[in-house]
């Protein structure tokens, strides 16, 4: 974040708040952002401390009480081997909230580097790389994941790499277009006249000035990363049992919903929906605050 406040020397700091404070101020006044942040923080708290306030051990089975409907003992009922659904939903936020942010981080780092390189050097390399990235973006993440997982096997690391690399071109595109505008400005020309290395110009001079669009794109991507992780877990290619992960729980229980055991899937589905919507609301708020 500190990069956002890199002040230009000409700016009059006495009358205005620093840009960072300005952004934070408008974020705190954005109802969309606050609602989103609240939902996300709720699930983060569940991920961190869920075990301590979950009423049951999310992994402990209790065959006698299997498939019990919601009741006072089991608020959300129990699943097919008698595990408490409420406890599983609470603790189930942990894996998705580790894998999705890590994938987003990878996408942001790789995408920013690619975007800086293609935007700064332009020319034939940019043309070729951009075309390839654009073509790559058309391939659905699920397909990339299927191939990678067949070839490399299932693990959290595979999921992180697949989603990270699938999203990197999208971030690269955003960064590239921001860099294209920046590189025409005087401070870049000044750096070039000082014979700074290209690396220095890109990462020390330009990068701090393109942080806002990167931040927006990253928060948006986090929403899609959660979407993708949940989907892959549901498909059996993501987080593996016995994790109480939401997508995974739905995949192991939805075969029985014809029998009316709705509680084994509904709460997990609502949990995913709330987290995805929470992140998107927060992203929307960040977008609004940075584009004012």
């Amino acid at each position, binding site marked *: 974040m500190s990069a956002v406040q890199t002040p230009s020397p000409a700016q009059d700091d006495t009358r205005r708040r620093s840009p960072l404070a300005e952004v934070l101020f408008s974020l705190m006044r954005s109802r969309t952002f606050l609602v989103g942040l609240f939902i996300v923080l709720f699930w983060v708290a569940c991920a961190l401390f869920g075990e301590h306030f979950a009423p049951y051990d999310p992994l402990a089975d209790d065959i006698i009480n299997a498939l019990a409907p919601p009741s006072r003992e089991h608020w959300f009922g129990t699943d097919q081997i008698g595990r408490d659904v409420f406890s599983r939903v609470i603790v189930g936020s942990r894996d998705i909230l580790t894998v999705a942010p890590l994938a987003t981080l990878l996408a942001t780092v790789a995408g920013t580097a690619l975007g800086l390189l293609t935007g700064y050097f332009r020319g034939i390399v940019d043309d070729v790389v951009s075309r390839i990235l654009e073509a790559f973006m058309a*391939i659905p993440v699920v397909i990339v994941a299927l191939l990678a997982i067949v*070839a490399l096997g299932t693990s959290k690391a595979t999921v992180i790499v697949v989603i990270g690399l699938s999203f990197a071109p999208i971030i690269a595109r955003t960064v590239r277009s921001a860099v294209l505008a920046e590189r025409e400005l005087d401070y870049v020309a000044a750096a070039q006249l000082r014979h700074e290395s290209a690396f220095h110009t890109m990462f020390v001079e330009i990068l701090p000035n393109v942080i806002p669009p990167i931040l927006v794109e990253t928060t948006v991507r986090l*929403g899609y990363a959660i979407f993708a992780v949940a989907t892959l877990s549901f498909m059996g*290619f993501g987080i593996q049992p016995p994790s109480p992960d939401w*997508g995974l729980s739905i995949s192991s229980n939805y075969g029985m919903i014809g029998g009316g055991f*709705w509680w084994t*899937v509904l709460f997990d589905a609502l949990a995913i929906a709330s987290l995805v919507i929470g992140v*998107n609301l927060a992203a929307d708020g960040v977008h609004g605050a940075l584009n004012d």
Partner: protein
Amino acid sequence: MSLSLVTLFLLSIMVFLGGQVLPGNVGRAILGPFADQRAVDALNHTLGVDRPLLTQYATWIWKFVRGDMGTSYIFRSPVAPFVIDALGNSMKLAAVAFVLVVPIGILGGVVAALNLNRPLDRIISLGGLSVTVLPEFVTGIILILIFGVWLRWLPISAAWPKDAGFFTQLYYLILPSLPLFLVLFGYIARMARSGMIEALDSDYTRTAVLKGLPWRTVIWRHVLRNALLPTITVIATQTGYLIGGLVVIETLFRYQGIGSLIFTAARGKDFPMLESGILTIGIVYAVATLIADFLYSVLNPRIRLGSDQ
């Protein structure tokens, strides 16, 4: 179009690498860890996986182009009939989703634009946006619970009885097509809305109004036509998404489409099936993009095929 060909090429490379190179010794994988090394070598030679990569790739593509998709490891029979059957089923599902979503999505966007910033606009825009960001299997599960389990209006599986007629099949396809509908609705309505707003705000609309044309004529003849253009682009670009969505939806609803075909093939490490399935999807994507480009040029008075832009 050229771009979608690059996509297709990239996809074929990825499929080739993922399916034939990275898994390592194919013969060993098929015959198991206890098979005799000579048998493994012989099988590798029969399958052609001991030849140089470039030769393998070229042979593979050439065979595919001629309709020879290889032999399934699991079913021990040619892959092509499976892929063609599955593709047909997927097209039915996608067709139902598209037939529902294109008119309703465009209508939603147009209605939203005509009621700009009024409650109706807010409801359509916000509603569309919220359902678009949800994973298909989540909306799918919730829809199954509502319409299949609680109300019992629609079957929860897409596998219709044997010899079902057109309307029975349609009945079984409504529920599976709804999650796709919801995701696409948001995109299409948003594009139609912004295209419409832009068209309403343009000089040609003002001219049309000022020269005294009735409002209805202005909307139909001038605004709508220009507002639809970006929508077509979205529909085309969403084909890629739709294919990803099909994999999930077909799995959820146990539907024998191309998505569940490649999913099952991936789980069973049935590489010829997996490769052919994915490559077929890539071709469908490229063709869809081509059709969209064509439609765009037909509808856009500023672009005509054959002119320099």
